[in-house]
């Protein structure tokens, strides 16, 4: 499956926040660990609400977590 044109910094942010586990992050935003893993791997694009919740957990802006990767027809 093609990766989404959205990069994310979730893995880095987790490690910068006391090596937060995927399970812990999942619990805090109300999704399953598998969903966090899919978002981290760029296989699933979260809803706007989930994206904001992730940013809120790390205390950063949405752009610090997710970046639009403009390339090809997705520009």
């Amino acid at each position: 499956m093609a990766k989404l044109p959205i990069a994310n910094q979730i893995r880095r942010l987790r490690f910068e926040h006391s090596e937060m586990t995927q399970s812990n992050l999942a619990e805090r935003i109300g999704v399953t660990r598998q969903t966090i893993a899919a978002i981290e791997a760029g296989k699933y694009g979260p809803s706007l609400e989930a994206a904001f919740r992730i940013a809120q957990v790390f205390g950063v802006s949405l752009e610090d977590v997710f970046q639009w990767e403009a390339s090809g027809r997705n520009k």
Partner: protein
Amino acid sequence: MSFREKLAWITLITVLVCFGAYFAAIYSGLIAHYSPAALHLALGSLIALIVAQAGLTTLAAVTTPKGGRGPRDEREQMIQARSHTIGYYTLMIATAALIIPTHTRGTDMVDIVNFALLGIAISTIVVALAQIVMFRRGY
């Protein structure tokens, strides 16, 4: 593996085994399709399906961490919606295909009911397979 993916595997395996045993017995000629034995096998398969699904679902719930058994999250809801859309079209095609045996000489009511049952089983398997594929690939 998430709780929902386990449920999809349980559905796939139990439907394949229970309905598979029934249709294999009927279409291999082991049991006459229009006989009390066929009816008993059909009811037995249905009861076995319900018991197996209940037992395996309980086992899946027990072996899944508490946090993974909550309501479906957004990704799981999307997977459910997409898989049921695929299953709906499969069931529509299977139902429309019933026109063929209905207008075929030598087909009786029991055959038509069996074909309808087969259509339900196939669409259920398609839904479970679609869910497993989507869980595996991310969505």
